[in-house]
């Protein structure tokens, strides 16, 4: 079954959300393991996102223009003694898609009646 064009699945929302959160904290670029770790911590999950699920989503999101990526300078990675990272960044289209995906939630929250509150 194909999903509706332009809609985001929960993992994509988590990736965009976390990517923007990291950017706000001053780290606009993230790599696969970092995003998996941040999602696990923010959602209090027991496991990190599976390799296949994570990288397939990142690949799909990049093709959709929600993310852009570039490979880290090999010399920088070698200086740290680790494999080079593929660094992703949320694009304007990604942020817009997240805002659209979030919009129905906000509307729902606004319309939800508050129990015990005085209504005019």
């Amino acid at each position, binding site marked *: 079954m194909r999903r509706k064009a332009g809609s985001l699945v929960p993992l994509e929302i988590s990736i965009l959300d976390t990517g923007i959160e990291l950017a706000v904290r001053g780290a606009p670029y993230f790599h696969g393991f970092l995003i*998996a770790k941040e999602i696990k911590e923010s959602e209090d999950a027991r496991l990190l996102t599976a390799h296949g699920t994570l990288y397939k989503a990142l690949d799909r999101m990049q093709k959709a223009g929600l993310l852009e990526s570039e490979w880290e300078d090999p010399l920088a990675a070698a200086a740290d003694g680790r494999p080079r990272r593929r660094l992703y960044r949320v694009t304007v289209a990604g942020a817009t898609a997240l805002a659209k995906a979030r919009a129905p939630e906000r509307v729902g929250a606004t319309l939800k009646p508050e129990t015990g509150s005085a209504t005019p």
Partner: protein
Amino acid sequence: MNAALTLTVGMARSWVTLYTLRLPLEIRESRRSEIDSDLWEQQWLAARRGDPALGTAIEVLSRMLLGIFDDLIWRLEAGVSVTKGQISVNDTWPMRIGFIALMVPLLLLVANGLGMVLGSGEFDNFQEQILWGLSFLVAPLVTAVGLWLCRTRPKLGLGLVVGGALTTALLMFWMAFITVPLAVVVIAFAIKRSGLAIWPFRPGTPRAA
């Protein structure tokens, strides 16, 4: 590094190597490098935090196993995008679905074998545990690799499937009434996938009356 962690990291790397085989160099190297980096970061963080190596090994294994289905889908999509317009009779959607349907239980059997090697199950001694564990690990793995190779190297692939599937069936001799027919189905599918002219109804020719 702990032996279990070394083994699971090696398995994760081998799995990436397997499912990216025959993809264009750029796509293949990109995926392999990305998983390499991920595995390195996970081990580095675990070492820095002082997490137990066995726990990290289990998490690496879980991440690999839980992602297998998505890996196979990604592989199919990546394969289709580079071979568009060259889809052969054995590369149809029913064949792909059949391939995944057979790969999933085979890989679960591989995971079961790995669990035995790592210590699950009850055995009289360590040698018995390793012997059974490796047998349960290798036989379905050989079948899975054979099934994968059937299209590109038909005879080798089919040979691996026949050997692996029958060994797997025999290993679970106490439920042979299930495993033997399943082995026959896997072998039949492998013959069909290989395109060899030993299928009862040859590809591209009418079925015999």
